[in-house]
């Protein structure tokens, strides 16, 4: 039996017996390199995630090799969504995971990484350990599953009503983007956690769909993955139509709203798709921040020489020390949104020809 062979061969992780392998879920795998190596570092948060993103290796064929820092693992939930999304593209017996030695290895078990990949970690959680405030790795494949997930959100994260508004907004819009546009065979992978020390909720969402460039270029011109991410972050740009106002179902506003939420609260937002990554950096200072229609006018970092991610990954931090009320933020989004649409419309005006 494959599972026993691998348990001896690896000696560390073994596959749960009796769980059928679902072949249908691997239909998208051919879009990845045939193998992957992914290393979970001791620290990877949005501020320093670049190194992790660049660390994917394609070494051995037909398997996913997961390794981790031997001393300490402390990573943003988006890292787990990426490992989970990748893992779901492999058969159980193609996932090799070394024995975890880090003191904080229980975190990966608690966040359901191994449960999602249907492998056993051998890690036993003690009943008395505090559960914390988190959403474990959750696979969402349709609209109804998202609606059910949204109901669980507030109690899982122990949020006050005024704190809940931007968080459920962000999660709903990002997951719906995946369900509607990504054509991801495994839907969306969601994970979130509250960090008490910084009083921040960190959220990750990943898919292995067609990526932003393929979606946005249905209606707009984008030469590179980074061009496509830039367009997707602008107000009123959707891949569904080039017309202002969008279609009956899409307006192209979702990612602009989310970028605005991150910006005014002086938090990170990271979007990685294809070979490009855009990261909105934390804004400094205390004065009110002006929203920008063009993400290149923000304080940001970006690159388009990352390992190919066939799909889209979004990581965002939301501070619960709300620097701005959601209602005030909506006023500012409204101003910027309308002004941008008017300016874009004006650019399309035909001019009189004076002779």
């Amino acid at each position, binding site marked *: 039996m494959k599972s026993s062979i691998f348990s001896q061969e690896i000696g560390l992780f073994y596959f749960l017996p009796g769980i059928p392998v679902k072949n249908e879920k691997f239909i998208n795998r051919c879009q990845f390199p045939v193998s992957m190596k992914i290393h979970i570092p001791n620290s990877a948060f949005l501020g320093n995630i670049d190194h992790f993103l660049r660390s994917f290796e394609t070494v051995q064929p037909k398997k996913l090799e997961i390794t981790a820092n031997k001393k300490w693992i402390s990573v943003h939930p988006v890292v787990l969504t990426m490992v989970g999304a990748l893992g779901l593209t492999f058969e159980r017996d193609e996932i090799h995971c070394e024995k975890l030695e880090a003191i904080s290895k229980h975190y990966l078990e608690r966040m359901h990484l191994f449960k999602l990949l249907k492998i056993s970690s051998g890690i036993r959680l003690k009943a008395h350990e505090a559960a914390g405030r988190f959403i474990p790795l959750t696979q969402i494949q349709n609209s109804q599953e998202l609606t059910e997930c949204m109901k669980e959100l507030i109690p899982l994260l122990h949020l006050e009503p005024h704190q809940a508004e931007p968080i459920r907004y962000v999660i*709903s819009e990002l997951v719906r983007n995946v369900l509607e546009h990504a054509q991801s065979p495994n839907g969306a992978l969601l994970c979130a956690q509250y960090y008490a020390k910084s009083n921040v909720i960190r959220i990750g969402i990943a898919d292995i769909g067609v990526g932003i460039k393929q979606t946005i270029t249905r209606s707009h011109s984008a030469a590179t993955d980074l061009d496509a991410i830039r367009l997707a972050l602008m107000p009123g740009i959707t891949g569904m139509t080039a017309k202002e*106002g969008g279609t009956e179902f899409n307006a192209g506003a979702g990612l602009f709203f989310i970028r605005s939420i991150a910006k005014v609260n002086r938090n990170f937002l990271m979007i990685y798709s294809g070979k490009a990554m855009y990261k909105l950096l934390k804004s400094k200072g205390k004065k009110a921040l002006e929203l920008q229609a063009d993400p290149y006018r923000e304080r940001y970092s970006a690159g388009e020489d990352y390992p190919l991610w066939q799909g889209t990954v979004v990581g965002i931090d939301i501070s619960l020390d709300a620097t701005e009320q959601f209602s005030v933020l909506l006023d500012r989004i409204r101003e910027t949104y309308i002004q941008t649409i008017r300016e874009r419309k004006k650019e399309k005006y035909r001019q009189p020809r004076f002779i």
Partner: protein
Amino acid sequence: MELKLLSFVGSFAENKDLARKLRLEMIIPALDAKKEVTLNFGGIEGTTQSFIHALISDLFRTYGNGVLDRIYFKSCNENVQKIITIVVEYMQEAER
């Protein structure tokens, strides 16, 4: 015709599929029958721009901006009002 949204979409109105269904099956037939429509947001704590867009944007394309004379938004909290206002404003700027 008054549509109490809470019973269809719950306290956080984010399911766009339901929004479209309500538009197609309840709002548009009422408008076609020359009725006024009241969208009752009582009990709804929050919503998304995507939900409101899926609920009402196509009404502007079908009936023009004058559709606002035949639709009322009832019992909206502050944030819901603001999100509706954003969608209403950009739809009046939209290309048809």
